[in-house]
């Protein structure tokens, strides 16, 4: 494997991203040292390359990536993996608001707590939160799945249209158009395949604790009955 280290300590985001895009053409793994919570790191990278951010990232880490695998060893700020289409963004620490905002595909993993509006307007893909997720998680979610191993705060699944939110902890309250259903065997099998692959090894009985938040209707703001198409 061809590896390269880039020291971000004295760089601005534009210079760093240029250096990363250049390196991605020649190397399989890029290690970013001294990231110091810089914003917009690895924005718009379309190469399928492995990136290690050795520390914390600021806002929009890995926004609009298409295939890269990004591992952040510290925390991430707001909107990590925003609008990604494919790849992985894995955060060892905590993250701010809007984790996985608008993603079309790929997987986002945050091992600790995250802020509000996790997975807002996501269209597809997977978001796994190892801790708690804040206010209005799944806001206007259009597809995909969010898995929260801790608690989920107020107005979970606010105006959710498609997709599902799996919650192992407490659900403080539901948003408009959201309802809770019990997980079935198919759901459990899906979670059992997915979670250990990202280092979340749960005891068998814990899979029964999950509840699933889904939309009441696909047309909550217009159309006919609540169950129409839903």
């Amino acid at each position, binding site marked *: 494997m061809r590896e390269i280290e880039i020291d971000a300590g004295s760089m601005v985001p534009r210079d760093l991203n240029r250096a990363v895009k250049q390196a991605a053409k020649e190397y399989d793994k890029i290690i970013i040292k001294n990231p*110091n*919570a*810089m*914003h917009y790191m690895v924005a718009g990278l379309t190469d399928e390359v492995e990136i290690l951010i050795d520390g*914390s990232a*600021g*806002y929009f880490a890995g926004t609009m990536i298409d295939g890269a695998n990004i591992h952040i060893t*510290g*925390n991430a*700020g*707001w909107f990590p993996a925003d609008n990604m289409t494919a790849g992985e963004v894995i955060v060892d*620490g*905590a993250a*701010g*608001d809007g984790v996985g905002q608008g993603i079309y595909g790929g997987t986002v993993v945050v091992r600790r*707590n*995250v*802020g*509000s*509006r996790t997975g807002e307007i996501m269209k597809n893909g997977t978001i796994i939160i190892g801790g708690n997720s*804040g*206010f209005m998680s799944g806001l206007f979610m259009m597809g995909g799945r969010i898995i929260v191993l801790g608690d989920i*705060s107020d107005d979970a699944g606010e105006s959710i249209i498609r997709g599902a939110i799996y919650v192992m902890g407490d659900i403080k309250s539901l948003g408009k158009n959201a309802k809770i259903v019990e997980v079935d065997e198919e759901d459990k099998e899906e979670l059992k395949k997915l979670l250990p692959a990202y280092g979340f090894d749960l005891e068998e009985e814990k899979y029964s604790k999950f509840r699933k938040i889904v939309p009441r209707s696909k047309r909550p703001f217009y159309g006919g009955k609540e169950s129409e198409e839903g």
Partner: protein
Amino acid sequence: MCGIAGVVFKDRKLHPVGEIMTRMLDALQHRGPDSAGFSIYGGLGLGENEYLLNIEVKEKSGLIEQVKKIVNTVTPIEKEEIIPSVENYNIYRCKIALNSFDELKPLIMDIDKIDDVIVLNGSHSFEMIKDVGSVKEIADRYDTYSKMGTHAIGHTRFSTESIVDRYHAHPFQSYITPDITVVHNGQITNYWKIRDPLERKGHIFETNNDTECIVHYIANKIYEGYKLEEALEQSIIDMDGPFSYIVGTPNGVGIAKDQLGLRPGVLAENDEVFAIASEEVSLRAVMDTHEIDQISPGESRAYTI
């Protein structure tokens, strides 16, 4: 956008908070290029009823003498200093003694009547430094690096609602009760609903800036007996709009965030330090930790010493 930061040393001893806040704000420079400011608490060492006035004076013959004349009619100037600023302005600083805090605001209003002169602030337990320009420029201009204190708040401003000048730089101060200052990132959309009852109580607004509204609101609550934590909690209920703001008092700092969580706020704390800011990068200027808490929508946090 704006960047906000606050730090408290829990041991109540003097620390180089000027230098620390400079680093915290420099890390937030990208959030606001227009102006920056500091409230550095605990290091002024003024005697009882002594105050420090920071007065913006245009470079014009005889203007500083006019200021001195007005001050001297109320109380003798004990110590003075002139700090050159930019755009043909100087900051005239003087130390004075008053019989009581109630004399401070009337004196400030008298000085403000002079054309091309405006009092930036008058304080007893903290030093306010604010100006236009970058954090580093202001830090060099006022030597913030040498300022000692127990706690501090600071701001980098991206102007949206009012003009860019030294006076509209944050922090804002209220004279309803001594030494309350606020730095703010956001907008208060029910501004007049908050301002009107405060004006009916006789509190004087100098600007239409919503940050001034917040500082009077908080100072009024504290004047009415609320603890800082209680004032912050009530403000989240009373105020509309997207906001995160940090309050500095003689005894501590606190942060409040709007109920929809539309402006950022993060916190890090250990046995020695309580630190809050818009972004993690600012917290890392004061402590080397990855244990960062997100301030939740509608949440307030405070630390008093």
